[in-house]
């Protein structure tokens, strides 16, 4: 694998994570538990679309075969997406979405805080902007997990269920492959394994305040680095890609 190939794949992965989670969050539009939360979740979705544009646009440029951010977003098939599976998990209830958001944005806060110093200028610039956004996402999600965890019996039960259900998808965020090792050596990418301890400590602190139990050892799902996904992704894509696929000659 050349440095250029690795950089393309790495950027694509960063773009896909933002793209797929933004699609999930945009499904909340008009479904929020209170109007204010509807606006908040839309803000997160908008931040993520902006990030997807930046990374997929850069990936298209690196690839250099005439793709654009939109053809990359809308014209690939399931096995060609490299987002972590946690991003594609269905929203579930509000507690479920907040737990997923906490797991992802706490990871991203650590990731982008280091990617700011990437030797790749484009990645560094996007990371600097993204860091501000994900800090807010993580804080908002953490606050909600605490309120729901330490709220009523029902909310505590729902959040604990969400934590148990999503937990097996958290480890994939820290998986490294050839792409990562090659780019870590170049000072472009981040050693994901090195972020895990800080991430887990942060989650443990939120859980302690939320009176939520940390799940025990369990099998951790894997596969997205090879384009292996949950069945949910195909449905998400068939909805998202509908117009681009049905009218391939149209410009919108």
């Amino acid at each position, binding site marked *: 694998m050349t440095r250029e190939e690795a950089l393309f794949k790495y950027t694509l992965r960063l773009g896909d994570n933002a793209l797929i989670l933004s699609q999930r969050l945009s499904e909340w539009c008009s479904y929020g538990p*209170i109007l*204010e939360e509807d*606006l908040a979740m839309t*803000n997160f979705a908008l931040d993520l679309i902006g990030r997807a544009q930046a990374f997929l646009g850069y990936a298209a440029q690196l690839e250099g075969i005439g793709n654009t951010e939109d053809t990359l977003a809308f014209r690939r098939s399931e096995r060609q997406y490299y987002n972590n599976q946690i991003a594609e998990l269905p929203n579930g209830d509000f507690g479920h979405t907040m737990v997923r958001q906490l797991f992802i944005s706490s990871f991203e806060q650590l990731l982008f805080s280091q990617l700011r110093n990437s030797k790749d200028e484009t990645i560094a610039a996007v990371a600097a902007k993204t860091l501000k956004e994900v800090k807010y996402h993580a804080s908002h999600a953490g606050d909600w997990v605490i*309120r729901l965890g330490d709220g009523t019996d029902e909310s505590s039960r729902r959040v604990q269920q969400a934590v148990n259900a999503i937990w097996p998808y958290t480890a994939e965020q820290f998986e490294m492959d050839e792409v990562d090792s090659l780019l870590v050596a170049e000072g472009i990418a981040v050693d994901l394994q090195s972020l895990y301890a800080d991430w887990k400590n942060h989650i443990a602190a939120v859980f302690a305040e939320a009176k939520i139990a940390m799940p025990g050892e369990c099998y951790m799902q894997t596969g997205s680095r090879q384009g292996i996904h949950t069945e949910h992704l195909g449905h998400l894509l068939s909805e998202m890609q509908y117009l681009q696929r049905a009218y391939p000659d149209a410009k919108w």
Partner: protein
Amino acid sequence: MATDTQLDTWEVFMQAKAGANFIHQGSVHASDGKMALQNARDTYTRRSEGTSIWVVPTTAIVASDPADADMLYDPANDKIYRLPTFYTMPEGAKQI
């Protein structure tokens, strides 16, 4: 449970840029101060209108009664000696 299912209301004051006055924007619903700040941010700064926000529980606002307006504000009208233009300065006086 309380009968109102929409949480408490908070009044939102925002500063457009550092050094400016905080100006009332409207209100948001939230159960606690942190949520109120986040909701105010997501509601009232979607176009980067602000750099700093105050939120105050609506119940904490004490407002004057319009019926008292004459008693409260009219007496200030004839205290024109509070205005610099009330005073006559000698010809040629500078920087005063």
